[in-house]
């Protein structure tokens, strides 16, 4: 995969993550679950920021950043904090794998960006009460 293809794939994953976190935020009560609401809100903002950064990295290469899909499939039952956490964990897992692939397909500042994103996604897993991993983003190494 070329650097540009990898950047576009990562951006596509960011679009999906933003959709997921928007939906998760709508299913999380700020008063009943303040800590989870704060975590979801923070991750929503984080993925929006990464999306904007990726758009710039792609545009800098003279390419058109991939657009978001019209809609995304999300679980119909996000009615409990457990379900929200589980879906958020799955999202972070997918993004972490994308960032790890981007590390392999980039060099210099772009790789540094991808490493930072991978580390943050791994830490987000802990904030979502997930278990630590041996190889975040690269599970086949374990």
């Amino acid at each position, binding site marked *: 995969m070329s650097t540009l293809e990898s950047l576009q794939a990562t951006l596509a994953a960011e679009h999906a993550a933003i959709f997921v976190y928007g939906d998760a935020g709508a299913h999380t009560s700020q008063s009943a679950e303040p800590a989870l609401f704060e975590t979801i809100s923070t991750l929503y903002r984080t993925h929006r920021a990464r999306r904007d950064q990726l758009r710039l990295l792609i545009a800098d290469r003279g390419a058109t950043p991939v657009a978001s899909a019209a809609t995304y499939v999300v679980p119909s039952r996000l009615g409990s904090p457990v379900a929200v956490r589980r879906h958020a964990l799955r999202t972070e897992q997918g993004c*972490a794998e994308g960032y*790890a*692939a981007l*590390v*392999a*397909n*980039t060099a210099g500042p772009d*790789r*540094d960006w*991808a*490493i930072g994103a*991978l*580390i943050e*996604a*791994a*830490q987000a*897993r*802990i904030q979502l009460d997930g278990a*630590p*991993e*041996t*190889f*975040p*983003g*690269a599970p086949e*190494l*374990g």
Partner: protein
Amino acid sequence: MVASARTAIRLTVALLDAVSARHRRLRAEISPLLDLHAAHLEVLDDGAEDEAVEAGLSAPTPAMARTQVADAENSLAGTLRDAARRASSGELARALASMSAAVSQRVIA
């Protein structure tokens, strides 16, 4: 690159061993870290002989030793991140970045 990453991990392991030997009650906390580093060393095993590393010196109290371990893990995460940044192979960079992320995860867990 691989050799320096292995040395950094082995230095951390040496410190963990020293802390574990001096403070028995910290063993349960340290054991998962030792498992993590062992898994990482296995992936980085290129068959080359490792240089000897000096055994770490544990801090005298459990509280100080816990801080010492956290500092060492933080430092290791940074070293692995830097190695990932400089790796000439993309796949090696990916593996090193994943290891840095794993160590960073344990630091905040």
